[in-house]
Every structure is written in C-alpha cells, then in structure tokens.
C-alpha cells in the first residue's frame, strides 16, 4: 500500500512542474504583451538589424518614449531593458517582443484546435457508440478512412480550400480570418483520435450496471447522456484535448515552414522558428533567431505534454496498478 501511494505522489510531479512552467511562460507573455503591441509593431522598426543578444539594450530609450526620457516610467524602463535580450531579427525587430506574443498566438491556435477536436470528436464518437450497430460501423468506417489520408496533405488542402470562403466571412484577409482558416484546417484533422477514444469510453460505460439500471427504470437517452455519460467523458476528453494542443502548435509550425501558416507580420512560435531556420541555413551565425523561439516552444510543449500524459495516467485505471516486477 505504501508503495502504491509512493508511485502516485510521484505521478503528480510532472503536472506540477508542467503547470508551473506553463504558468510562468503565460505570465511573461501577458506581462509583456502591452509593451510588445505598443512599441514593437511594424511601425517602430529599430535600426539594430540582426544584432546579437545582449543584456544591455542596443536601441536607445528615446526610440520608445516620445519627449523627455527622464519622464519614462519605471515599467517602461524595465520593459526597454529586455529589448535586446533575445537579439534582433533581419528587420531590426526585437526578438524578445516577438517571441512572447508568438507564444500567445501559438497557444491560441492550439487551444482552439483542441476545442474543435473535442466538440467534433465527442459528438461523433458518442453518437456512434450510443446508436451502435450499423450506424456505429458506418461512422467508424469514416474515421478509419480519414485516418488513411495523408495528414499533412489534408491540412494543406483544407487550408487552401477554406481561405476564400472564410476570408469572405471575415471581410477580407485579416489576422482573424487567417487564424480562423488555420484553426479549422488543423482542428478538422485532429478530431479523429478523440472520436475513437470517446466511442470506446461510451461503449464501456454502456455496459456499466448503473447505466443499465437507469435504463431499466425508464430513463431517456437524453437523461442517460446528461447524467451518466457526459460527466464520465470529461476526464478522457480533457486529457486528449491537452495532447491535441502541442500537436496543433507543431502543425502550425510546419505550415509556417511551408509559408502558408500564420501570415507575416503576426508572430507565432512556429513562424519564428521557420524564419530562424531560413536565416541560419543561408549563413550560419544568427543562432539566436532559432534558439530562443525553439527554447520557448520546447518548454511550452514539454509542459503541455507532461500535463496531458499525467492526466491520461490518472484517468486510466490500468496505469495505476503496481507492476509485479518493479
């Protein structure tokens, strides 16, 4: 018994570490967001082209403060100090103030894709399992076939196909339209695993004595769904949704690498990494352009994966059994 408790407490460590890391990243992102938007947008290019990282800012404070430098607030001065920490890119933009908003954009893409995957996947999987029989077979056959499609190709085709109609919906190719297209394209291919997981879960739940008992007392399908099935689905769905976020972020980075991801000048971690790789490939030397975006990307994705894996372990009763040999 002691041993079991010991293993369980260990399993919490990744969640705590992952959660803290993610919280820290988010705090920095949100904290620097205002300054990034106000002073580091397209209109305020500094002259520090491809300047390497330095602790002291290479851009004078006057570039950010109109009027008297002496009147700049402490916060502005502090924010200004961070400008050159991650170096500057080929247009002289501060990488520090592109990485943090980039993280927010990436996380937003990941979260939205996870949400789409959760909604579509749960609906599809639960419907198949509840109706069962021929409906189940047909619906799962569709999932099987979609699994057989080359994943990346589908994302690209969806992205191309959706660009015009969605842009029309948003009134031109705004940043919002651009992100929406990406989301639907990535979310549109991420719901398959979710559908399988949910179907398996519902099939298992249907066999449970208390569900059978409820049905025997004359409960309606809606009642069963609302009171017995959905509450039990929250765990697995949340778990797999957590695992969809890093996948979606990586897919966006791949699309950015192809040049059809987030459109410039909007930053995303994938966009920044792809731009960095181009700079490094042509002339090895601008290492900071690739190192810093990737560092933030890795920390964010590892902590998300940590949380997702630990959640899955927690919700999967099998993984709590103590192995005989250990």
């Amino acid at each position, binding site marked *: 018994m002691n041993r079991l408790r010991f293993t369980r407490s260990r399993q919490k460590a990744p969640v705590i570490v992952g959660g803290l890391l993610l919280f820290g990243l988010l705090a920095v992102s949100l904290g620097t967001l205002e300054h990034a938007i106000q002073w580091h947008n397209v209109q305020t290019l500094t002259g520090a082209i491809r300047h390497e990282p330095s602790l002291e800012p290479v851009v004078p404070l006057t570039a950010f403060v109109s009027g008297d430098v002496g009147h700049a607030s402490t916060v502005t001065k502090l924010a200004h100090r961070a400008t050159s920490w991650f170096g500057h890119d080929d247009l002289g933009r501060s990488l520090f103030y592109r990485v943090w908003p980039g993280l927010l954009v990436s996380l937003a893409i990941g979260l939205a894709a996870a949400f789409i995957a959760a909604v579509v996947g749960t609906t599809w999987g639960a419907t198949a399992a509840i109706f069962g029989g021929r409906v189940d077979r047909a619906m799962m056959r569709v999932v099987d*076939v979609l699994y057989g499609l080359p994943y*990346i190709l589908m994302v690209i085709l969806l992205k191309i196909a959706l660009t015009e109609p969605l842009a029309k919906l948003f009134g031109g190719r705004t940043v919002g339209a651009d992100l929406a297209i990406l989301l639907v394209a990535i979310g549109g291919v991420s719901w398959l695993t979710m559908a399988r997981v949910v179907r398996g879960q519902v099939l298992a739940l249907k066999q449970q004595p208390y569900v059978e008992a409820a049905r025997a007392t004359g409960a309606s399908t809606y009642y069963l769904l609302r009171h017995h099935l959905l509450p039990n689905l929250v765990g697995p769905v949340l778990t797999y949704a957590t695992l969809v976020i890093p996948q979606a972020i990586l897919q966006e*980075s791949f699309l950015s690498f192809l040049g059809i991801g987030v459109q410039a000048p909007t930053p995303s971690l994938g966009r920044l990494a792809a731009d960095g790789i181009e700079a490094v490939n042509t002339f090895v030397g601008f290492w900071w352009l690739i190192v810093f975006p990737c560092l933030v990307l890795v920390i964010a994705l590892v902590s998300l994966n940590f949380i997702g894996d630990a959640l899955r372990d927690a919700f999967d009763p*099998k993984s709590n059994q103590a192995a005989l040999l250990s």
Partner: protein
Amino acid sequence: MTRMLVRRLLAGLLTIACIYAITFTMVVSIPGNPFQQGQHRLSSDVESALLARYHMDNNWLYFWEFLRGAVRLDFGPTFTYADWTCNQIIAASLPISMSIGLAAMLIALMVGVPIGVTSAVRRHSWLDISATTLILTGISLPTFVTGSALLIAVGVKLQLAPVGGWGTLSHLPLPAITLSLPFMAYIVRLTRAGMIDALSADFVRTAIAKGASRQRVIWRHALPVALLPVLSFLGPATAQAVTGSFVVEKVFGIPGMGQHFVNAALNRDPGLLLGAVLVFSTLLVAFNIVVDLLYAALDPRISEAL
C-alpha cells in the same frame, strides 16, 4: 486464414477507393487550376481548351478518366515538371524515400523498443524519467529544427556527413535519423505502456511463479505481447515514412517523394497529387495487412481465432 486475407484485401480496396474519392473531391474543390500558375497567364480560350483536353472541365468525367488510367498504373501527365510524366516522377522518387523511410523505421525500432522496455521495467526511476523527458523534448521540436540542428552539428561542424543531396550511402544517416525521431518517440511511449500492462498480466505472474528468470520473463514472455500496440502503429507509420517527408527532404535537399504531396497541392497539379495519394494509400493498406499477419504470429490467442 485465406478467407481473412481475401476479406482484408477487399476492405483495403474499398479504403483506397474512398481515399481516392475524398482526395479527388478536395482537389477539384480548391480554387485554381494547373494552367493558371506562376507568371504567365493563358487566355481564357486556351485555358478552357486545355481543361477540356485533360477532361478537367467536367469533374465527373475527370474522376473516371483518371481512375481508368490509375488502375492501369498510368497517372497521366504532370503540369509542373517539363518532360516528366507522373509515373516517371514517382518511379524516380519513391525508391529514395523508401530507403530513407525503412532506415528510419529500423532506427526507431532498434532504439525505441529497448528504451521503452527499460523505462517500463524501472518505472519512475531516473532512467525512466530522463528517457520520457528526452522523448517529450524530441517530439516538441519541429522536424525542421531537429534536422537543421543535426545538419549543422554533424555536417557542418564535425564534417562527418555530407550536408545534403543524394547518391551515396553517406547521404543516408542524417535524414534517416531526423525522420526516425518522431516515430521513435511514439514507439517508446507505446512500448512502455504495453510493457506496463503486460508485466501485470496473469501469464507473467505464472511465468515468475514457475521460476523463469527475470530477463526471460521480460524479453520472452512480456515483450511479444507488449509489442502488439507498437505493431499496429507500425503499419500506418511505415507507409508514412516510406512515402517521404517534405521537411526532411527540404532540409537535406533530397529528391524524394514527400515534396510532391505538398508541391502538387500548392501547384494545383491534380495528376501528381492523386498519383502520390494512391501510392500512399496502397502502401498503407498493404502494410496494414502485413501487420495483421504479424499480429497473428506474435499473439497465439489471435492465430487460433483465424
């Protein structure tokens, strides 16, 4: 056994047909056509004449015409590469992607399975934790970053391998390792999970009770069963690996097949795109059947049922 095989083949054909139909629908519904790409613009008369020539003015007709060619293994002309047919392009690039893909899967298995087993046997040890963390880091980096890092470290700094291109055996290791990393990460996870399940199964308890050695229990009794999930992952994964990866090919400058999935879509080259997808789905179905057969070989409970 034969009945199972025939049933699988028929189901596979149906799957290929569905994949063809879905891809076709997507291809004809995206805006643009192969004749209005790049700088030169054709007059609308010429464009419609060309579309009619290749049956692209009528989607239904094009669907059947392409299918008719495809069953005779003729994917028709490409509209992007001068002097090439789709068949020639696929015939030239598929072997390259196959050698990289097979090498990558081999690396992924040879490294991934032992790590997964060790990780499961010594659960929550420092070895398990560091392996899991390393794997998570590995799958958290985009392939273009890991590939470029390998290229710069091994190719440029250490000068141990050519920085790109294709032709000799020395061109193989770097792209194969890059391609293997995401698959390896998956295999480690699946092996670890499968092994943890298998180690708590009744037949392992029986094996321990009858006095089998620790090593024998792990490798001979538990591992074959633990590998079943890995095996079902290998089917689709191998099909994906041997048809190439766009990123790996771009980073290392390899004339493989993965680039055609992406470029054909961006260039609106329907013949090449559909041809590549058909090759992929055929390989996918074939590998899945092989996996089913291997399944029966690994798990006595399944082979008895056949």
